[in-house]
């Protein structure tokens, strides 16, 4: 009986040995890389002199949480562009439909997941904050 007891304890104590722990010392020591298809904070893709987004309104239309606000306008070249592009992260459910709907691949999701903040306003991501 003692043998079995020791065997059990050995398995338990083995995890305490260096190199056998699965606990991540987040955030002080390390941060794990996210998976390639992880759905974190959105990013608007920049093109040469403007954003790639053409304000087609497909993302606010498809968004199940209704967290995207787009207002389109015409720039000096007569092109359609988003005058306002806003995501309310407090409503976003990170489903990624906006990325899927985008016909010009202007929006994608990054691996960023550290999104905590102190005030509600800080969760509204405007165009400039999303263009990275």
């Amino acid at each position, binding site marked *: 009986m003692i043998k079995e007891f020791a065997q059990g304890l050995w398995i338990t104590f083995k995890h305490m040995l260096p190199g056998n722990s699965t606990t991540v010392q987040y955030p002080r020591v390390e941060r794990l890389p996210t998976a390639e298809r992880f759905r974190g904070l959105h990013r608007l893709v920049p093109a040469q002199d403007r954003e790639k987004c053409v304000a*087609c309104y497909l993302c606010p*239309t498809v968004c199940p949480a209704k967290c995207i606000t787009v207002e389109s306008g015409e720039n000096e070249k007569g092109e359609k562009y988003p005058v306002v592009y806003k995501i309310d992260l407090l409503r976003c459910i990170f489903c990624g439909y906006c990325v899927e709907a985008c*016909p010009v691949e202007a929006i994608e999701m990054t691996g960023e997941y550290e999104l905590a903040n102190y005030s509600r306003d800080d969760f509204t991501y405007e165009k400039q904050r999303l263009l990275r």
Partner: protein
Amino acid sequence: MVNLTIDGKQITVSKSATIYEAAREAGIDIPVLCYAKKLLPYGACRVCLVEVEQMKGRLIPSCTTPVTEGMIVRTMSDEIRKVRKTVLEFLLVNHVVDCPVCDKGGECDLQDLTYEYEVVTNRFAGEKFDLEKDEVNPLIERNMNRCVLCGKCVRVCDEIVAYGSYSFINRGFETKIATAFDRGLDCEFCGQCVSMCPVGALLPRPFKFKARPWQLKEVDSVCGYCGNGCTVTLGVLNNKVETIRFNDKIGVNDGNLCVRGRFGSSYVNSGERLTKPLVKRDGQLVEADWDEALAVISAGLKKAQDGKGVGVISGARLTNEELFLVKNLASVIGTANLDHSGGECYKGVTEGLKQTLGVTASTGTFPQVEEADVILSIRSDFYETHPVFGMTVNQAVKRREAQLFIVGDKNGKFDKLPGAKTLLHKPGLEVNVLNALCQELIASGKAVTDGVNGLDALTQALAAYTPEKVAALTGVSAELIRAAAAALAGAKRSAILLAYGLPYTAQSREIAIAAANLALLSGNVGKEGSGLYLCGEKANSQGAIDLGVLPGPGGMGAQQMLTAAGKGELSALYIVGEDIVSSYPDRDKALKALAGADFVVVHDLFMTPTAALADVVLPAASFAEKDGTFTNAERRIQKVRAGISSPGEAKTDGAILAQVIACLGSSVSYTGPAALFAAVAESAGYTGIAYDQIGPQGVVWGGESLTVKHKNLIAVAGAEPVAGDYVLLTGSALHHSGTVSTRATGPNAVVSEGYVEFGSEDAKALKLREGDQVALKANGVELKLKAKIGKRLPKGVLFAPYHFSSAQINTLYKGEAAVAVQVVR
């Protein structure tokens, strides 16, 4: 009737139907790009191909093939699917796929079909179109890279608008739609082509990149401009009317609109709208709250009641319910001084009709005009005052070969129609010409005289109006008068059109009587399908007449009120929704009246020149912000619906009137719109019409053909021509209506300021060029205006529209038919 089978379904349709129409009637959907209900079949797109058992071996275009007895049609099979898909692939070879930035996306027929037929790849390769966009004009964007050559714009502009801006140019792959000489679009800007385009080749520029169609809330209402009563479907986003949506499902206009209806509603979003009540303190209008304003009004009106009395003047763009409350207000104040729309213009016309026919409304409805074989339009401006009614006339003439005669002092759009003949007379002599037509009918023995009173007296009085004599005086050829009289007498169905409005007050009673005489003698009255059409200038002119917003017994009409107020014989004026300074004939009189009255209340949307002179200004709601009913020129009662809320503290005229009435110690309380409408219907004589009965098509009171009460012929004297080298006419211009359209960006983008139009002959003699400043002098007044040069005016005749307050046309025009002026460069 013809029997046929479509997809196994037995269908009976009229023999003039096409396969497509038969299928649609049976609820079977066949895709189309080039078909439109109101246009003639064309067969350009080849998307509607179907199989017909009797015509095996090839596919048949369903939109151009008439049905035949026993036809067996299949609308879908593997082969049809394959062919339709191929057609779409062909269309997409050159079509730029810029759906994300195309405003049509979401309601594009090509996009929908591409999705339905799963055209994900294209077997054919070709170069995408790379043509320049046409954005020269402010209202319509043309991007021919997206065109599928369905020809709908070409056809609507020709068949319905009768303007003919577009045509196909080049051949084969190079084919495209272009204007004359492939220049920028410069037309009436009615936007009919925009409403027809199945793709994004023609788009409304004011709506460019504003929203996606699916985001808009659609509210069906009635246009607030002219008396035609077109259905406008407001496209509302975030409490703002962003655009007017195409809607040919309901209403009287079949989806047709003019530049005002389609592009002229932006004034409701204007930042210049009044949002708070204003009260005059120390000679300045300052913002106040409602309670304060109402207290000032109630004190002011009570003082005036004890003084020399109050006059109430209303506009004709109020709903029936609001006009009813205006009447109520007058009775609570205890005054018989009540009137609308300048008083004279509608009054003469309705009085004249009352004496002759006993009715004060059109005797027929619009669809009857489309089937008329002879049409007489009194005044060439008819197309400009009622453009969509004008389109009905276009269709009657172009499609059914109706004969059109125009009695006019200038040429216009109408006389370009095939076979149209203008009885072009010197200004102000309409009555003479109409009298000559009557005289000719009597003299030739073609007159219909059964049951008509007063024939002998009329025959005697008209002895001086033989075609020859009138021809000598008016300049119309005697033969033309004879031809018009003969055509009217011989017509199976005839229509006589008469419009009235603020700039047409001269001889209005005489014109109405002469027109009624003509209607009686030509057999127009009482004949099935024929009618005399009385068309009011404003959206609810007919409602105001029906409701009797008129002087009571012993009361003063609008012009008398203004005269009295100017002399200090009227203490207060209560003006609802009318800018009398800008739009009434004789500006001095209106200004004097406003200065002479001790207390003036104005309801308006904007700080108009009239409102600026008031003691209290109340912010009112536009047509897009209120519920109620309008009665149009064919007696159709239609519902107006609120699409947005009013800016700031603005309220509907109805709500304001109810509050003012309450302040005066009386009260109006109705349990809801139905109860209020019941009271309106009782007052207006809309017997048997309940609020809930007014469906999408509205309800016509008095039936399709209004029965006249009596048939009295009354002799009226014509006028003498106005002497002078140059005579100035005023009237309505196509792009504007009343004064409010001058606050709308759409109409303003085309015509933004007052002008005086010269015929090319006069312009040459005066060495004038387009845009030159000229001065018009008459009655000691000098007006500086920009010159515009056209081809429609005869020599010695000038035209200036009355809409623009800053142009001050009404300092010259004081209600006469034409003003002799001096032109100084």
